[in-house]
């Protein structure tokens, strides 16, 4: 597949548009959309209108009463979600959100302005649910629901990563993620979904994780990691699976034990948890913290998330520890307790090493590993040699969801400052709550969507480029599995020479373990730091 070059891609026109946006028009150009979901995945999950089709087909084979389904679905959701009703009503189109969206900044397509993405839905809301829209039509900003509008919804609601950056700037807190989520739910009712969301969801429902790794495969992966860690450090760690009576259930995104560079982070977890002697177990059933239900429907979130508490109850653990993942933590922090709680069979999480009670997780009973590790470091429970990371000059990418759903900003930074010597922040308006998305979140990280991903990732990559050129940054640390999967190709495209790593990979590098062999390599198997080499 010939892909556009960066020099071509960056010729972005933000200028005035000749057409009125109210006339639906969408062109499914290769590289800018995701393929449809396979029928088998819809069938497995019991979702409607499974069929063979593609977005670029003329005929989308919608059910005959698709219009009624959509309008009934809207009505139901207007009654169920105050956010939806309110966000349909109160936007004043001030335009503050316009240039906050990475997809708009990278594509210049005006319908990628958050305000207009929402207007695609609002115009239909006005037409069928407000007096003014019913009476005045186009003058009141209302338009008929047609198949072309559905195609437009599909294109643009699958061109939003639900990163919520626009919501930070909106004077009314209008959250496009909320509108996109409901938009996708509606599309889902008539069978318009993408495979990159539905296949992981179906896998997760069946096997327990997005990748469809079955229990024996899961055990193989963990065993392989244990062997590899022994080769690197000389220490054999114990990583149990489905063990009843452990104190803590540890849940990570499945990419951590199956993808690269996630895998090095997984090694970091294993080293850390062994070193402090935590009594924990993995679960082959709850072998996924991530939740692609978030990109499908609220119901699917709940269906996929249910296994977390169910497994914690079955295994009889006291509390749950969660690995590095972005949208996984949006679900765990903002949805899990409400949907599948109360977790009254668990105890308020207490770190057995430091005695710290994680009061902030007293109801959900699930702690982020960065919170856990920061507490260990702060209490001096870890022996760390940051010079082992001296071959890295590090910057930190706040993943959208930990930043804007949780406010997990200082913990990873505290850890990074403790485990590496060279750390530089990216420019102010691109980090923390204003962080830019990787451009591939919410199920859009597929190869057929490559051009759009590169466009959406431009603002993030450009900020990395700034610190790369200014401070020689060569490693982007992050705490999100989708980041770790999609930032490497993004940086390869826009800023060659910068690698991507999880925070706990760097922890694993710096961690001085009792009884370990001198480390000849880092967790990636690359020669140990130059600093040590010079001293030797």
């Amino acid at each position, binding site marked *: 597949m010939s892909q556009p070059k960066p020099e071509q891609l960056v010729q972005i026109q933000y200028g005035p548009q000749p057409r009125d946006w109210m006339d639906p028009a969408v062109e499914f150009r290769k590289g800018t959309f995701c393929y449809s979901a396979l029928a088998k995945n819809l069938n497995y999950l019991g979702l409607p209108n499974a069929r063979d089709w593609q977005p670029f087909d003329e005929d989308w084979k919608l059910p005959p009463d698709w219009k009624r389904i959509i309008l009934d679905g809207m009505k139901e959701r207007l*009654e169920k979600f105050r956010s939806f009703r309110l966000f349909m009503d109160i936007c004043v189109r001030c*335009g503050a959100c316009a240039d906050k969206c990475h997809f708009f900044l990278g594509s210049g397509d005006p319908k990628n*302005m958050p305000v207009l993405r929402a207007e695609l839905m609002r115009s239909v809301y006005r037409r069928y649910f407000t007096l003014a829209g019913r009476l005045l039509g186009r003058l009141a900003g209302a338009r008929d629901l047609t198949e072309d509008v559905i195609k437009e919804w599909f294109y643009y609601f699958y061109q939003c990563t639900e990163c919520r950056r626009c919501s930070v700037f909106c004077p009314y807190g209008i959250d496009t993620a909320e509108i996109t989520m409901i938009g996708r739910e509606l599309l889902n009712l008539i069978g318009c979904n993408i495979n990159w969301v539905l296949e992981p969801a179906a896998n997760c429902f069946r096997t327990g994780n997005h990748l469809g790794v079955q229990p024996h495969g899961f055990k193989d992966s963990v065993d392989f990691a244990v062997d590899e860690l022994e080769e690197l450090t000389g220490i054999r760690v114990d990583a149990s699976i489905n063990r009843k009576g452990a104190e803590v259930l540890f849940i990570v995104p499945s990419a951590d034990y199956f993808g690269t560079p996630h895998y090095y982070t997984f090694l970091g977890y294993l080293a850390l948890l062994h070193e402090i002697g935590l009594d924990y177990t993995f679960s082959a059933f709850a072998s996924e913290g991530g939740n692609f239900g978030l990109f499908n429907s609220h119901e699917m979130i709940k269906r996929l998330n249910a296994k977390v508490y*169910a497994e914690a109850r079955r295994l009889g653990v006291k509390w749950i520890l969660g690995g590095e993942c972005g949208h996984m933590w949006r679900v765990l922090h903002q949805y899990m307790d409400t949907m599948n709680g109360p977790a009254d069979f668990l105890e308020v999480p207490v770190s057995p090493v430091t005695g710290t009670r994680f009061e902030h997780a007293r109801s959900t009973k699930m702690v982020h590993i960065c919170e856990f590790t920061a507490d260990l470091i702060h209490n001096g429970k870890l022996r760390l040699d940051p010079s082992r990371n001296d071959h890295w000059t590090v910057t930190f990418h706040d993943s959208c969801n930990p930043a804007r759903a949780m406010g997990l900003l200082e913990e990873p930074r505290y850890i990074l400052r403790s485990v590496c010597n060279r750390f530089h922040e990216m420019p102010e308006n691109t980090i923390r709550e204003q962080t830019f998305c990787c451009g591939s979140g919410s199920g859009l990280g597929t190869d057929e969507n490559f051009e759009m991903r590169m466009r959406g990732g431009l603002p993030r990559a450009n900020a990395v480029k700034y610190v790369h050129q200014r401070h020689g940054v060569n490693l982007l640390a992050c705490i999100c599995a989708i980041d770790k999967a999609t930032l490497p190709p993004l940086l390869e495209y826009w800023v060659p020479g910068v690698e991507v790593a999880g925070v706990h990979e760097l922890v694993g590098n710096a961690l001085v373990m009792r009884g370990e062999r001198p480390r000849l390599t880092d967790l990636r198997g690359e020669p140990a730091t130059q600093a040590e080499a010079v001293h030797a």
Partner: protein
Amino acid sequence: MKTSLSALSLVLAIALAAAAASRFVWLLPLLAVALPYGTLAIFLAGLSWRVVCWSRSPVPFRIPTVCGQQKSLAWIKSARLESPHSTPGVVARMALEILLFRSLFRNTRSRLEDGPRLIQREAKWLWLGALAFHWSLLIILLRHLRFFVEPVPKVAVLLENLDGFFRIGAPVLLVTDVVVLAALLYLLQRRFRDPQVRFISLFTDYFALLLLLGIAATGVWMRYFARVDAVAVKQFVLSLTIFAPALPKNPGPLFFAHFALAGTLAAYLPFSKLMHMGGVFLSPTRNLANNNRRKRHINPWNYPVKVHTYEEWEAEFRDKLEAAGLPVERP
């Protein structure tokens, strides 16, 4: 362009129609009695209906947009205003949002330079213009109490004196009159000049601005240039408030243009984006505390869903679990 022109024509038509109608004595009851009572009733009923509508849809999930450090470990300073973990924090965050437009203050403007370098610069003009407009409007509304209440409330007198602080001319020049016009003109020109904002602007966006501009302009014209008899205006307005309407003695066409435009605004408000006035209080991304893991949020319509249970899972993968030596519930 077409939409802005039609909005302008509509505002002008309302103003001119009212001004013309005031010349005909037989139309006065309509203009001076039916119009104010009718529009006020629509305003109050419409606004209440909208708010009740919103309140009937529950907030199923706690979804604050967090804009600062969470409260987690004791030694990490949490952002009390940007990521409030308690009710006082939420109240403070909402107060900042509603009184000072905190989120708009964050605004940036991005620019793509050669390199490529994508730069996010601070951009405060929209914030300043919006804040100037809204505060002026509030002060002007409160100042108008002098026409509606007898004796005049102290707050209206105080605001009048503060507003006329510079003591320029007679009638004394009021700062908010200048500011509200300037801010409205700024907001309006933004809709024309900024290509992105122009692209998203609808009829209602121009109409609301032009309507407010029309009200402000007629008001200013009445006070400083045409000089309407304020005592007569007050007598008329008071008569309306005690439900004993007495037609004004010397109705100026300008007064009725102002009056009709204000009535239009009141009646239009509940059915328009101007409901953001009430909606901003209810925004779930702002008015909820970021204490999700500390306190369980209840979803009133939480319903059971079809899940894949452990037992089903174990049954499906029993062979593989046993082959891998993983423990099972039912051996």
